[in-house]
């Protein structure tokens, strides 16, 4: 037990360090976006008819603390995020980012996690089957269907489904809520309404993530299935799916669980494109908007940071879970 606690603490520390490194990367990226917050504020004032000069911009920069050295600004940003959970104000929308994001981020995370779950629900059984079965026809057709998710560009899939549903049901399935629930508070009815629309992005994202998951599961399974302990188990009379699930699958799925966080990253990466087409009002679309259109550094930084924090957290959880199951993992990190 002591070993486990030591492992958990080391992992937590490492996660924190990773998070700090990531926050530095994110913050640097946001600095690279052309223009600064001060210029944006004053550009807005300019549209209102006020005359502005270089001195005004510099004064505004001082007021916002933008004239401080890079490391100091980063420290302040990280400090606010870590200790107060505060991301500051958006440059363009002039709103508090926490208010702006609110449940939008949780919706995005929920969609991504569901897509992740869906992709492994498909990939694990098919991957194991594809690695072990010798029936070429089922094997190949199952793989073909899974890989189609990768080959069909997801924006195209979204468009096709939208078009078909518009023609057949007269509803384009876009957006996240029906009209009557858009501004309502969360309730059971609103949640059900959300589910009736969210399945589409979940399905699209999940399907396109399946290919990668399937390749991983299949490769790991093929590595394990030829090993001697499987032969030994088979010699003891364990057969069929019982053999597969009890022996090679357990070993093969370890690394899969370990990389769940990065899979989440891959799925979130696709989200803005799908969100753009389905006109979803969630964090992915907001991220795209703030990066590609309005150059809103503060908002983009907040969304990326929240996402990376969820990934680091998920990695931490899966590591802990693996360590609980597998004693080799615990020893691996310390010794």
């Amino acid at each position: 037990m002591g070993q486990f606690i030591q492992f958990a603490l080391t992992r937590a520390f490492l996660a924190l360090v990773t998070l700090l490194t990531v926050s530095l990367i994110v913050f640097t990226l946001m600095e690279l976006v052309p223009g600064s917050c001060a210029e944006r504020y004053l550009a807005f004032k300019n549209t209102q008819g006020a005359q502005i000069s270089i001195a005004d911009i510099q004064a505004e920069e001082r007021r916002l603390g933008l004239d401080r050295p890079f490391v100091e600004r980063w420290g302040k940003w990280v400090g606010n995020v870590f200790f107060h959970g505060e991301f500051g104000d958006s440059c363009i929308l002039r709103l508090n980012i926490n208010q702006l994001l609110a449940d939008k981020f949780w919706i995005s995370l929920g969609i991504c996690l569901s897509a992740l779950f869906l992709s492994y629900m498909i990939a694990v059984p098919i991957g194991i089957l594809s690695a072990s079965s010798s029936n070429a026809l089922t094997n190949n057709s199952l793989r073909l269907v899974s890989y189609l998710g990768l080959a069909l560009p997801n924006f195209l899939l979204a468009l096709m489904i939208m078009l078909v549903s518009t023609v057949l049901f007269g509803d384009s399935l876009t957006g996240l809520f029906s009209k009557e629930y858009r501004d309502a508070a969360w309730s059971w009815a609103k949640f059900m309404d959300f589910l009736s629309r969210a399945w589409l992005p979940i399905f699209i994202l999940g399907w396109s993530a399946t290919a990668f998951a399937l390749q991983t599961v299949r490769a790991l399974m093929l590595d394990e299935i030829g090993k001697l302990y499987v032969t030994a188990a088979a010699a003891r009379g364990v057969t069929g799916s019982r053999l597969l699930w009890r022996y090679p699958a357990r070993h093969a799925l370890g690394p899969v669980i370990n990389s769940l966080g990065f899979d989440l990253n891959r799925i979130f990466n696709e989200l803005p494109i799908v969100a753009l087409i389905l006109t979803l009002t969630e964090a992915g679309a907001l991220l795209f908007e703030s990066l590609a259109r309005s150059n809103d550094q503060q908002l983009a930084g907040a969304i990326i940071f929240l996402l990376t924090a969820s990934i680091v957290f998920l990695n931490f959880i899966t590591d802990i879970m693996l360590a609980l199951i597998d004693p080799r993992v615990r020893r691996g990190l310390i010794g």
Partner: protein
Amino acid sequence: MFWRRKKAGAGVDQEAKEAYFTASQGQLIWSRFKSNRTSMIAGYALLIIILMGVFAPFLSPYDPTIAGRDPNYENGAPQIPKFWDENGFSFRPFIYATERERSMATNFRWVVTQNRDERLYMDFFVRGWNYSLFHIDWDLPGTAFDVDVALIRSDIHLFGVEGGMIHLFGTDASGKDIFGRTLHAIWTSLAVGTLGVLISFFLALVIGGISGYFGGWIDSVLQMITDAIRTVPPIPLFMAFAAFMPDHWSSETRFFFISIILGVIGWPTLARRIRTHLLTERTQEYVLAAELCGASSSHVIRRHLLPSFTSYIIVDLMISFPYMVRSETALSFIGLGLKDPVNSLGALMQNVSKADVLLNYQWYFIPVLFFIALVLAFVFVGDGLRDAADPYSGTKK
């Protein structure tokens, strides 16, 4: 298993055994790959698509840029060559002449009609626009890096048509031939993917190699950095890099820059695999033996460790290829990658995303079919190579 089938006679058996034991790693992989029918089919498909891309200028009858547009056939439907119709049979394939009309009768819109009585016969190996194969023309910032090399310059094309233009896949809104554009797009996307894969491969090899070979604290630090980079979603990274890209850059420069970005972002996964492999491999006796003989680190890495998993690397490259191509298309689709006058699969797919196109001009989808075929072929060949490269894969089924 391929050698077990030959166990008919004792002499043959001996020969087959010898062939097996003396075969090089490459020969073994190839013979295992050959016995996998699905992968072989995918391999042929892939080869055909790649050749189509490489010989795109020769195969396409018209210049895929605005210079080769057909002003009389905008948004025109595909023209399929025929051998016979109600007017009789012909050994030379032909298409019908088209007429364009705008008048009171057509409500003042251009309407294209087919004239079934006038045949345009196809010609083969005709002279057309000038092109060069294996053409490298980079116009990088700074004149020292400019490259302009071509292996073959010619103006002969596989086919054309007498007294008109032929558009196998139809034309787009400005009258550009979609057949030619698709073939050129395959070439562009493959080139972006190859460059990206090579760059990420190089980075992965260096970083993963150092990390795995030296282990200890170097490994820990490098792994932390790798993990941090893997945690940041690539799209914002792309966007931040794309913000650097000035508008005045030529399409070739943009293209080159995008491949570099793809490569710089794609390395961590491969680096991690190389590192894991090296970590297990470097404790083997043969490495110890080499070190005791006084071999330097770089010598051990190059001559002993790398060859031990070349097959894995090839497989990994093959597997990461479709993801590179896909990233390029996704990037172009959101408008950050290659833009419309450039022929890349992503840029062509961008045109499909309008409801108007979905309902009226379905032939815009033909490039998408090529993209799907390309990705599927890559994935299946990758799987087949993976199975073939696994030395134990033959022994279990």
